[in-house]
């Protein structure tokens, strides 16, 4: 907060950092549009945009088609998914008071993954089935987790997390069963590749889905971010500061779940981002969610964009994004653990 005396304006330093992060994201967004196996001419794109603006007749070149129908939606989608996984990771970490919490904690990811696997097994062509099943089963998984914790005689956050582990394990077994039953030459590779995570299916339709399912959630979490500070102090303290903890926790979990399920449908299981981004954000900007949550949101986009650029350029054929996120995320997390004092979490 950097207040040396009571007349100084709080948060100036953090606001400046947020601005820098936004500029980095903007720069990376532009660079990413021109990174890839297919080389796009910068001049060609600028000319087409100029023609579009001047309402001249447009000759759709290959460069423009790749730019507008493949690369642009993909990059927007990557930014959405990176933001959603990171912001929900930070929310879960605060709500469950556990710095190791991530979007997969309540079984959402596993449930949605089962939905995707099932949809591919039943009818590979129907993208609608894929989204619907992934969304529904993500919600079913969370409901399971909820009811187990409600029925349990022991109350508290730990039961919810443990129930989440059990549900995750159950739905992972369901995914394995589907893989076992799937045709090993056609469907099995599709299921495996989808679940490993990839943005190669990204188009404008996926972007619109994200716009309706993820953007409202991001806005709601940003509006509620001050409460995450208070919630992270523990249930009784939050109650004593006037927060209806039970209601707020349910609201935050529902909003997060509704956001995470479609990320699995559009991009598969993208690991690590949701766990490490909040830690990096705390390291850069401090623990106060007022600044940390927007920073997490921007940083999630930045990190996933970098990783997706690597995934689609490092080899002639694209490699699944989860391999890249794990290769970078896991060692980075170890680094954070070793420098725990500075990483902004304490236990």
């Amino acid at each position: 907060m950097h207040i040396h005396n009571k007349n100084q304006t709080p948060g100036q330093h953090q606001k400046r950092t947020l601005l820098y992060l936004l500029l980095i994201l903007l720069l990376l967004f532009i660079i990413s549009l021109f990174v890839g196996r297919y080389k796009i001419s910068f001049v060609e794109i600028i000319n087409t945009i100029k023609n579009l603006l001047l309402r001249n007749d447009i000759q759709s070149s290959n460069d423009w088609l790749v730019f507008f129908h493949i690369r642009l939606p993909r990059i927007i989608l990557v930014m959405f998914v990176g933001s959603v996984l990171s912001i929900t990771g930070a929310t879960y970490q605060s709500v469950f008071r556990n710095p190791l919490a991530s979007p997969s904690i309540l079984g959402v990811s596993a449930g949605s993954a089962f939905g995707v696997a099932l949809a591919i097994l039943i009818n590979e062509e129907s993208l609608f089935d894929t989204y619907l099943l992934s969304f529904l089963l993500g919600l079913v998984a969370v409901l399971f987790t909820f009811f187990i914790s409600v029925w349990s005689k022991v109350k508290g956050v730990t039961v919810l997390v443990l129930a989440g582990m059990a549900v995750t394990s159950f739905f992972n077994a369901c995914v394995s069963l589907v893989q076992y039953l799937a045709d090993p030459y056609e469907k099995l590779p599709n299921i495996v590749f989808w679940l490993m995570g990839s943005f190669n299916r990204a188009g404008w339709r996926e972007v619109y889905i994200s716009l309706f399912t993820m953007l409202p959630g991001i806005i709601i979490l940003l509006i509620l971010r001050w409460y995450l500070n208070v919630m992270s102090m523990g249930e009784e303290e939050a109650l004593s500061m006037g927060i209806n903890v039970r209601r707020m926790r349910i609201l935050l979990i529902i909003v997060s779940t509704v956001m995470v399920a479609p990320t699995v449908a559009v991009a598969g299981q993208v690991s690590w981002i949701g766990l490490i981004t909040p830690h990096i954000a705390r390291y850069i900007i401090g623990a106060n969610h007022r600044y940390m949550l927007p920073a997490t949101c921007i940083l999630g986009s930045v990190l996933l964009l970098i990783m997706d650029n690597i995934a689609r350029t490092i080899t002639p054929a694209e490699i699944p994004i989860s391999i890249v996120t794990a290769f970078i995320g896991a060692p980075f997390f170890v680094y954070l653990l070793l420098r725990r004092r500075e990483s902004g979490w304490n236990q």
Partner: protein
Amino acid sequence: MISIKNISFSYDTVRDTIKNISFTLNKGELIALLGPNGSGKTTILKCLNGTLKPKTGEIYIENHNIKNLSYKEIAKFISVVPQEHSAIFSYLVIDIVAMGITPYLSFGRMPTKKDYRTAYTKLEFFNIQHLAEKNYNQLSGGEKQLVLIARALMQNTDYLIMDEPTSHLDFKNQHLLMKELKKLSENGKSVITALHDPNLALRFCDRIIMVKNGEVIFSGENTKVMNPQNLQILYDAPVSMNKVEDVSIIYIN
């Protein structure tokens, strides 16, 4: 005034943790809850701010039945100072203090610059404004406790509840903290605190409530109830009281 009328609470169906507790908390009073471990002090305090719902009995805050108040409304009357602890994330001291304004924020709003200036003055009250930008988790136990009280002051309530605030503090800090609580009650705040050390209660508190096995066994003005006989019954131990340089000292033989 907060009045507690015949409240009982149980964590299970087997036995009541507290039974028929009644007392009042008046403006500007510093009250100590004394009693052995497991006597029900914490449970009473948790019922007082609505964290636990009593099985029977009523609690009135300024003539409002607590049952009819939301958590937000209760938080404008009563603030709670927990035992000093570590926060899960490394917040700055000034952010921790600013959290006290939460009950007054409308939905989705955040503390303003003015709120942060108020938070700073709360640190000044305890002369710890130099800690404003420090990481809360790296403070000493005594400093953390003062920061948590500053947060309660930020909450701007007439009543403060504290559960054994001195338990993690060293000898000197225990006395400093009690002096600060006395100062708060002299400034019109009502403070109720569970205490382990009867000497601190004897020296600083106006009124004493002695709790044993979930029941109030003695209650009244400090000078009237703090005697070896009552303390002996309270703690089941041979308690004596002596004067050293005009200060009464309680000890176990």
